């Protein structure tokens, strides 16, 4: 495959770099033969091992999005309405994270990123460094991080291996985030056997900054010095980006060196030092985190963005192991490091800041004319590559796709194949749902997270959205955050599943009183070379893009994690949607629980009638089947506008959206406040499905339960009618701690709320006691 007339760089003092580049070596680096041919074309010669390694990580899916770049173009990246709040200041893909305007000269940088494969192998360190990586992306932008959330997916909680992963991941997140002192507002967690062996760990960070404080990751200004800051480089995390871009196998455990080790204390020092340095006017030209592909990615990306060349000398790179060769230094993913380019002549200002924080600040190179990324070691050039060839010229693929058989099968499945649940089985079915770890209380998780540090926590984890006050910016405004993605819907109907992930996430914000501003997404899918897996990816992206366009909520960044496979195939498609929203006033914040007796409970939206894809089918019959509930984007918009405006008018005191488990689960969750209440609920008919199970447990979209004080009920009903939102009073909260539910005048449930709450609260702790 190599042209013998081609030459390589002169021999390197390190003999391991003079190895012959064989097809096997190319394959081991995850590069296809045609990709290697492409590299030969670009260089006009044979790459050495270090250069091959550099191409391998930069052209991996993790860094280059080679299988998804075309699809990602479908996402709107700016707001259509140029007068509204939430304008995009830094677009998706342009920098380390997107930034949106929140008014008063302030912006919010936020992004989600996956650390799935490392967490599968080494859950504590994998999850911890996932948090570390995303936090660096945010403060690299010049923003002070103000909140964290996570989107986690695990297999069946009964499995001891899954318990080990779950405990390890939560403890890794807790350990790293708590030490940094950034409030962790929880997030979403689902348990499904499709994630067995391949858990998903998606970490999100949001930060706040003044518009003028936005930093760029570009190396500009020929002669400007390039600094390496943070702890020394070791051999950990070698080639992590390529590791993340292939399937996990039995042998993956041997890849443990590809998992990085985190040090949250170092990260805290780096965070404070970088923010202090960036606050010095005119000092920093460009800054980039050394995350995936470490020194390689940060040097070639900053050069590429700056339309410059860059030259670095590896002998100047702080190292904490001896005898590292250029391949190892360039590909190490040692954590908590940054590349900083400052204005020439002002080096001392940077150095003083890092001396104060007792961190390395090593001048390792400078910005050059031209377009080459040149790396030297021991006086010899060990890599000399056009920087843009690594970033902009990475291959882009449009993979073949075909609809998996189960998707067609799901469309044909009808609920008539199972008989409706008799009234006397409703309470046991409800109890089963409440005990399902996806639905059960996640307190066991978030009480391990410091969600109150920085003094801003306003709505603690466990409500529809987490809310923090922007006190640190001196603002009396509130940022709300929600994550969502029901994999069951995406598995059965990827397009609609993605629409639902979006509308549910946005509805969670609306239930908290927040207007959605922008999205960051984490696309977790299987191997894109499998046509069925690629089909799911494509359809989910289309669904998400259509929803974003409809609501004029742009995508400002995110992450793609492919090759999520386990023994029996791909994971369910999991396009995690995270959305930030803004609340202007403390009085406009709503929680999900009813707070006192005598409140009327109103259902917004028609009576639920669809059982397809529901958790009820799972817990009752072990089925992942059926037609995914319809999504009416127009009705959804009316519902959410109504919710937000009536919350602002003080008519609605609490709101909770119907999601996993449907109406009955949502209803009892609203009663699980600090002092549990009871409720008397009466639903006049079975609704359009004529099935009790579909009414009580169906997961029809666009439904919200609200709590309204009795004197405001008429106004709410009148205004709902005017706004075209179906609304009906279905009951009242009581102080009796008893839930009495009648449908069509027949008594269906008479249950002690504290008993139900205990089932819901104890489910996860009781599973976790035994490990």
């Amino acid at each position, binding site marked *: 495959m190599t042209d013998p007339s081609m030459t390589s760089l002169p021999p390197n003092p390190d003999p391991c770099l003079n190895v012959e580049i064989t097809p096997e070596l190319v394959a081991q680096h995850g590069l296809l033969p045609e990709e290697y041919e492409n590299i030969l074309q670009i260089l006009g010669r044979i790459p050495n091992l270090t250069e091959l390694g550099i191409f391998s990580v930069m052209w991996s899916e993790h860094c280059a999005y080679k299988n998804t770049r075309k699809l990602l173009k479908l996402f709107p990246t700016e707001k259509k309405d140029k007068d509204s709040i939430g304008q995009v200041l830094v677009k998706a893909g342009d920098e380390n994270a997107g930034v949106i305007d929140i008014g008063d000269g302030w912006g919010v940088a936020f992004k989600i990123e996956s650390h799935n494969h490392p967490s599968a192998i080494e859950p504590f360190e994998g999850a911890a460094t996932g948090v570390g990586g995303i936090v660096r992306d945010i403060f690299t932008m010049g923003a002070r991080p103000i909140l964290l959330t996570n989107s986690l997916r695990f297999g069946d909680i009964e499995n001891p291996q899954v318990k080990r992963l779950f405990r390890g991941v939560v*403890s890794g997140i*807790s*350990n790293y985030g*708590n*030490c*940094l*002192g950034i409030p962790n507002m929880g997030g979403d967690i689902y348990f499904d056997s499709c994630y067995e062996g391949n858990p998903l760990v998606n970490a999100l960070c949001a930060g706040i900054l003044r518009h003028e404080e936005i930093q760029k990751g570009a190396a500009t200004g020929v002669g400007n010095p390039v600094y390496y800051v943070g702890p020394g480089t070791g051999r950990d995390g070698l080639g992590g980006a390529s590791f993340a871009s292939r399937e996990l196998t039995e042998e993956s455990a041997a890849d443990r060196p590809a998992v990085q080790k985190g*040090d*949250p*204390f*170092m990260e*805290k*020092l780096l965070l404070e030092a970088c923010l202090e340095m960036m606050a010095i006017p005119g000092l920093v030209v460009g800054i980039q985190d050394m995350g995936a592909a470490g020194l390689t990615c940060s040097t070639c990306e900053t050069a590429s963005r700056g339309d410059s060349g860059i030259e670095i000398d590896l002998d100047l790179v702080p190292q904490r192991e001896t005898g590292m060769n250029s391949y190892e230094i360039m590909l190490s993913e040692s954590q908590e490091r940054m590349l900083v380019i400052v204005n020439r002549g002002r080096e001392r200002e940077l150095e003083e800041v890092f001396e*104060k*924080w*007792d961190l390395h600040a090593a001048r390792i190179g400078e910005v050059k004319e031209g377009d080459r990324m040149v790396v030297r070691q021991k006086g010899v050039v060990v890599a000399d590559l056009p920087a843009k060839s690594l970033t902009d010229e990475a291959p882009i693929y449009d993979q073949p796709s075909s609809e998996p058989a189960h998707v067609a099968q799901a469309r044909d499945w009808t609920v008539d194949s199972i008989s409706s649940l008799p009234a006397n089985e409703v309470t046991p079915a409800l109890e089963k749902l409440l005990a399902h770890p996806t639905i059960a209380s996640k307190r066991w998780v*978030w*009480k*391990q*997270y*410091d*969600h*109150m*540090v*920085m*003094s*801003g*926590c*306003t709505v*603690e984890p466990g409500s529809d959205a987490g809310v923090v*006050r922007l*006190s*640190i910016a001196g603002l009396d405004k509130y940022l709300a955050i929600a994550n969502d993605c029901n994999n069951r819907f995406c598995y059965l109907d990827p397009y609609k599943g993605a629409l639902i992930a979006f509308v549910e996430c946005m509805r969670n914000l609306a239930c908290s009183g927040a207007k959605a501003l922008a999205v960051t997404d984490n696309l977790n899918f299987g191997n894109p070379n499998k046509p069925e897996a690629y089909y799911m990816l494509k359809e989910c992206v289309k669904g998400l893009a259509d929803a974003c366009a409809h609501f004029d909520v742009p995508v400002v960044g995110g992450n793609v994690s492919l090759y999520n496979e386990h023994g029996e195939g791909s994971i369910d498609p999991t396009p995690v949607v995270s959305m930030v929203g803004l609340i202007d006033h*403390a009085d406009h914040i709503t929680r999900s629980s009813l707070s006192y007796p005598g409140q009327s409970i109103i259902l917004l939206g028609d009576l639920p009638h669809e059982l397809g894809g529901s958790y009820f089918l799972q817990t009752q019959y072990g089925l992942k089947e059926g037609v995914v509930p319809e999504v009416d984007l127009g009705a959804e918009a009316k519902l959410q506008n109504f919710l937000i405006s009536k919350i602002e008018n003080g008519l609605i005191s609490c709101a909770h959206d119907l999601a996993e488990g449907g109406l009955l689960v949502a209803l009892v969750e609203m009663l699980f406040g600090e002092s549990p209440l009871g409720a008397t609920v009466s639903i006049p008919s079975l609704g359009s499905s004529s099935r009790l199970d579909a009414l009580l447990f169906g997961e029809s979209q666009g439904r919200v339960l609200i709590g309204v004080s009795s004197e405001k009920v008429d106004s709410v009903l009148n205004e709902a009618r005017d706004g075209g939102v179906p609304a009906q009073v279905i009951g009242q909260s009581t102080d009796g701690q008893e839930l009495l539910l009648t449908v069509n005048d027949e008594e269906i449930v008479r249950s002690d709320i504290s008993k139900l709450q205990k089932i819901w609260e104890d489910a996860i702790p009781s599973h976790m006691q035994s490990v």
Partner: protein
Amino acid sequence: MKVAIIQFPGSNCDWDAEHAVDQILGVPAKRIWHKDSLPGETEAVVVPGGFSFGDYLRCGAIAQFSPIMTDLKNFADKGGQVLGICNGFQILCEAGLLPGALIRNDCLDFRCLNQSLKVEDSNDRFNRSKIGNSIALPIAHGEGNYRVKDSTLEEIEANKQVLLRYQGNPNGSIHDIAGIRNRDGNVYGMMPHPERAIEAHHPCLDGIPVLQSFLEPLQSARPAELASS
């Protein structure tokens, strides 16, 4: 500036403490870097929460050797008001300004929740102020399990040095101890975070009287004498 908030590498409640004392309670406060000396005008010191030096070795173990600790000890010896919150409490114990030590929670996990606490008869302005008998304050720690040798425990109890006790012990602390004072009554340490219970969006406002009772003696302090070393 009246109140110095000491910032160690790894402190992460330093902003919160400054915000609480300066902005919310209106007593001028400023963060002081651990390599600097305590300003002459200092009338009270808060050692805030966080993970000083990453809590490596033992929580608070490395911070006790920071340059500012000499000033802090002199300040405390002269009767200066010192409050350690969470990691600050751990540091004060390691530095010998308060008795005992804080070890890993008995549940082995980090705990973050709004904790119910009983205000003890500490024979001190702390419980003679407007603090109620039972209050709630947020806790957030992995190592809040208070331990002290039996003879010292007897002394602490006999001298009424216990400020706060947990109602529903979250970490295994001996005698449910959540906060103590030194014998002279000028050095306070507590695991709960009063600075997280002072604003309308917080779970409650019980932190206000707690912080106020600590700041109360400031009016009569003689700053120059306290801080000179």
